[in-house]
C-alpha cells in the first residue's frame, strides 16, 4: 500500500492542481471580460451624459434666445426665471432683486388678473390674456399673455410659465387705424362732394349722402352698397340738361379708363356740377373707379360776378379821368392807363419799361419822387404835388396819390399812383395868391387912404372950431343968447362930425391884417373899462363871474366891451339901472352876454341895429357905427352876435368868441 496509495494520492493531487489551474484561467478571462465591459459601459455612459447635457444647454439657449419674453413664476407670482426680453419688457433684473408679478399689475386690471389666474389654475392654461402693467419707470404697457401651469411628478401644480408680449404699440397703431378709418368715413359722409366708388364689376363699394342728394336718390347711402351701376346713367340722365351726352360721356370714360377731372355738367334745373372720374388700379390691375360730383353753381356765379366786377373796374380804370401809373421798385413803368398816356404826352411804348421820373421830371422833382418812393417802401401812402414836363414839352402840375403795391405774397413790388392834372387849379391857386397879395396891398392902401381922408376931413373941423371960438371971444358980450346957442350947436355938430370920422376910420381898420393877437384877460380889461367909462350913480355894472381869457387883440376887445357897455348905460331909463356881464361855455366857444334893464329895442329894429349908421333914437351923441364895429370885431374872430330885447324891459346882447 503505501506506494500505491502514495501513487494514488500523488495522482489525485496532480488532478486537483490541474483543475484549479483551469478554474483560475476561466476566472481570469471572465474578469478580464468584465473589466472590458465595465470600461465600455463607462464610455457609453459618458457619451450619454454628454449628449444629455448638450441637449439641455441647447434648450437653455432656445429659452434664452426666444424673441418673446418668457417668464416662469411660482404660484404666488414670484418670478423664478425669465429671459432677456422679459427683463427688458418688465424693466427688471432678477440678479439684482426678486420680482413679484402681482406688484406690476395696473390697479384697474387687478380684478381681471385674478380672473385669468383662476382660469389658469382650473384649465391648466390661458391664452390671449391682455392686461396692463406698470413698470418701474412708470410706463404703462399693454401685454398679451399665453401661460400654462407647471406640475411636479405627483401632478401637483407648483408654478406657471408664460410668453408675454408687449402689444402697447400694436394696439395704439390699431386704434389709430380705426380712428383714421372712422375719420375717413366721416369725411366721406360729410364731404360737400357726392362720392361714388364702384368696383371692377360696377358694384357700389362706397357712396355718401351728398351723392344721393345730388342724384335725388331716395335711399340712404348704406342701402346702395353692393348695387350694380350698369343702368345708373340711364336712370339719372333726366336730371341733366343734355341727357344723351351725359350717358355717352359716362360710357366713354368707362371705356377709356383715364382720369378726367373737373368736367362741368349742367343740370336740368340750372345747377352746375363738376365731375371727376378716377379709375383705380392696384398693381396695374383695374379695380374699379371713383366718381365725385360737386355742386359749383354758387362758385360759378361768384366767379361770374367777380369777372363782372373786374370788368367794371378795369373799365373804370381805363376810362377814368385820372392817370394810373404802376411802377416797380426801380420806378420802371409797368402799366399805364389811357388817361396817363394822354396826360404824359408820350405813347404807351415810350413809357413802358422806362423810368417814369427820367421821362417826366427835372432834377428837383426827381428828388421829391425818390423821397416819396423810399417812404413807399415803408408802406406809407400819401398824396403830393409835382411839376412835370410832358412829352409835348408842356409844363404841368400833377397831384399824385401814391400807394405801395404788393404781390400776393405780401412783398413790395413797387407803387401805384393816381395822377390828376391840376395845372388849371394850380394856376387858379397862383392867381388867387397874387390876388390875395394884391388885395392885401389895396387894403393897406385903402387904410392909408382912410387915414388921409380922415385927416383931411378932420382938419377943416378943427379950423371951424377955432373960428367959432374966436367969433365968440372977439364978440364977447355982444352976441344975443340965441346967437351964442347957435355957436354952441355948431360946436356940437363939429364934435359929432369928428366922432363920426373917427368911428368910420375905426370900422375900416378892423381887419385881420394888422392883428396883434395875444392871450387877453377879459376880466381885467372889462374891470378897467368899468372904472374908466362914466357910470351914473343910479346904474350898477356888475361882472357875474370872473371872465375868461381869449386869444385876441387887446384893443379890439376894449372896443367891443366899451361899445356894448356904453350902450347899456346910455339907454337906461330905470331908477335903478342894472348892467350885467356874464358868460358860459357852449360848443367850444365862450358865449358872453351883456344884459341891461334899459329901454329895450322894438322887435322891428332888432335886425337893423348892427347895420352901419343905424341909429334908433335921436341921441345926438350916437353915430350909429358902434354896433357895426362890435359885430365886425366878433366876426373877425369867428364869433357871432345876436340880441334879445323887450321894449321897456331891457336888452341882452349875446356874442361868442372862440375858447382857446
Amino acid at each position, binding site marked *: 500500500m503505501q506506494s500505491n496509495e502514495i501513487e494514488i494520492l500523488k495522482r489525485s493531487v496532480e488532478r486537483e492542481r490541474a483543475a484549479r489551474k483551469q478554474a483560475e484561467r476561466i476566472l481570469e478571462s471572465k474578469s478580464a471580460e468584465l473589466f472590458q465591459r465595465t470600461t465600455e459601459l463607462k464610455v457609453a455612459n459618458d457619451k450619454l451624459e454628454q449628449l444629455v447635457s448638450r441637449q439641455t444647454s441647447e434648450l437653455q439657449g432656445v429659452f434664452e434666445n426666444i424673441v418673446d419674453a418668457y417668464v416662469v413664476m411660482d404660484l404666488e407670482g414670484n418670478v423664478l426665471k425669465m429671459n432677456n426680453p422679459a427683463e427688458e419688457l418688465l424693466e427688471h433684473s432678477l440678479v439684482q432683486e426678486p420680482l413679484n408679478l402681482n406688484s406690476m399689475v395696473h390697479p384697474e386690471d387687478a380684478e381681471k388678473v385674478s380672473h385669468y389666474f383662476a382660469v389658469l389654475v382650473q384649465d391648466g392654461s390661458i391664452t390671449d390674456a391682455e392686461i396692463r402693467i406698470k413698470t418701474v419707470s412708470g410706463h404703462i404697457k399693454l401685454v398679451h399673455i399665453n401661460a400654462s401651469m407647471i406640475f411636479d411628478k405627483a401632478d401637483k401644480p407648483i408654478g406657471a410659465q408664460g410668453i408675454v408680449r408687449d402689444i402697447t404699440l400694436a394696439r395704439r397703431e390699431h386704434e389709430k387705424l380705426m380712428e383714421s378709418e372712422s375719420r375717413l368715413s366721416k369725411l366721406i359722409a360729410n364731404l360737400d362732394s357726392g362720392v361714388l366708388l364702384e368696383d371692377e364689376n360696377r358694384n357700389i363699394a362706397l357712396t355718401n349722402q351728398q351723392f344721393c342728394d345730388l342724384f335725388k336718390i331716395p335711399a340712404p347711402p348704406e342701402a346702395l352698397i353692393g348695387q350694380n351701376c350698369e343702368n345708373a346713367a340711364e336712370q339719372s340722365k333726366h336730371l341733366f340738361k343734355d341727357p344723351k351726352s351725359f350717358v355717352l360721356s359716362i360710357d366713354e370714360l368707362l371705356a377709356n379708363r383715364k382720369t378726367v377731372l373737373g368736367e362741368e355738367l349742367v343740370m336740368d334745373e340750372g345747377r352746375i356740377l363738376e365731375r371727376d372720374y378716377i379709375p383705380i388700379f392696384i398693381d396695374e390691375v383695374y379695380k374699379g373707379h371713383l366718381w365725385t360730383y360737386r355742386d359749383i353753381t354758387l362758385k360759378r356765379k361768384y366767379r361770374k360776378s367777380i369777372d363782372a366786377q373786374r370788368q367794371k373796374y378795369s373799365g373804370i380804370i381805363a376810362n377814368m379821368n385820372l392817370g394810373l401809373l404802376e411802377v416797380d421798385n426801380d420806378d420802371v413803368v409797368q402799366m399805364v392807363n389811357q388817361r396817363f398816356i394822354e396826360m404824359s404826352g408820350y405813347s404807351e411804348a415810350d413809357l413802358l419799361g422806362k423810368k417814369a421820373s427820367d421821362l417826366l421830371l427835372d432834377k428837383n422833382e426827381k428828388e421829391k419822387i425818390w423821397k416819396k418812393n423810399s417812404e413807399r417802401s415803408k408802406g406809407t401812402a400819401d398824396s403830393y404835388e409835382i411839376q412835370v414836363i410832358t412829352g409835348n414839352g408842356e409844363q404841368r402840375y400833377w397831384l399824385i396819390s401814391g400807394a405801395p403795391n404788393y404781390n400776393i405774397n405780401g412783398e413790395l413790388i413797387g407803387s401805384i399812383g393816381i395822377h390828376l392834372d391840376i395845372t388849371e387849379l394850380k394856376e387858379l391857386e397862383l392867381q388867387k395868391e397874387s390876388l390875395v397879395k394884391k388885395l392885401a396891398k389895396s387894403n393897406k392902401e385903402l387904410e392909408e387912404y382912410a387915414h388921409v381922408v380922415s*385927416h383931411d376931413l378932420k382938419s377943416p373941423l*378943427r379950423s371951424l372950431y377955432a373960428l367959432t*371960438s374966436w367969433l365968440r371971444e372977439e364978440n364977447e358980450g355982444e352976441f344975443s343968447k340965441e346967437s351964442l346957442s347957435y355957436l354952441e350947436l355948431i360946436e356940437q355938430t363939429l364934435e359929432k362930425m369928428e366922432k363920426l370920422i373917427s368911428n368910420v376910420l375905426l370900422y375900416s381898420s378892423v381887419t385881420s391884417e394888422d392883428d396883434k393877437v395875444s392871450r387877453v384877460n377879459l376880466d381885467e380889461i372889462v374891470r378897467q373899462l368899468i372904472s374908466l367909462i362914466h357910470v351914473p350913480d343910479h346904474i350898477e355894472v356888475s361882472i357875474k363871474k370872473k371872465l375868461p381869457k381869449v386869444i385876441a387883440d387887446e384893443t379890439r376887445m376894449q372896443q367891443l366891451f366899451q361899445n356894448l357897455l356904453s350902450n347899456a348905460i346910455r339907454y337906461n331909463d330905470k331908477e335903478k339901472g342894472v348892467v350885467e356881464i356874464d358868460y358860459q361855455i357852449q360848443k367850444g366857444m365862450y358865449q358872453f352876454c351883456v344884459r341891461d334893464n334899459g329901454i329895450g329895442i322894438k322887435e322891428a329894429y332888432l335886425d337893423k341895429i348892427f347895420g352901419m349908421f343905424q341909429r334908433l333914437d335921436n341921441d345926438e351923441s350916437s353915430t350909429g357905427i358902434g354896433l357895426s364895429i362890435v359885430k365886425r370885431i366878433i366876426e373877425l374872430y369867428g364869433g357871432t352876435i345876436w340880441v334879445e330885447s323887450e321894449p321897456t324891459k331891457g336888452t341882452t346882447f349875446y356874442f361868442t368868441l372862440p375858447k382857446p
Partner: protein
Amino acid sequence: MKLKSLTVLLIEDDQIEVMKLKRSIKQLGHTHKVVEAKNGEDALQQLTSGNVLPDIILLDLNMPKINGIEFLKILKEDAKLRYIPTVILTTSENRTDLLACYEVGIAGYILKPLKYEDYLKKIDCTLQYWSVNELISN
C-alpha cells in the same frame, strides 16, 4: 421965473392953423416968435439959407409937395439941422405915421384936438416945456 422966448418954425400949409398957433401964443401971453413955412420945401430953403435957426420945429404931416416925413428925413440927414427938436403937430392918428416919425427921429408927437380950448392947453404945455429946455441955438 421968466420963460425963455423961443423961435418956433411952424411948417403948415393951412392958413387957419397958422393963425391958431399965433393967436394961441398971443392969448397965452407967451413971447415966442413964430416963423412960418408953407411946406417942407419952403422950410428947407429957409433953414439952409441960414436966415433962420429955430429952437424947435412944429411940423404938420399932411402937406403938399414934400410931406412931413420926407421933410423929416431930409432934416435928419443934415449934420447941423438934425439937432433941432422937431415936434409933430398933426390930426393924423395913423399908427403907421407915428411909428415912422419916431423911427426917423422926432422930439414929440402932438395930436391936434378938435376943440380950440384943448388946443390952447396942448400948445401951452408944449411951448412951456421947450422953453425950459437947454437948446442948441442959444
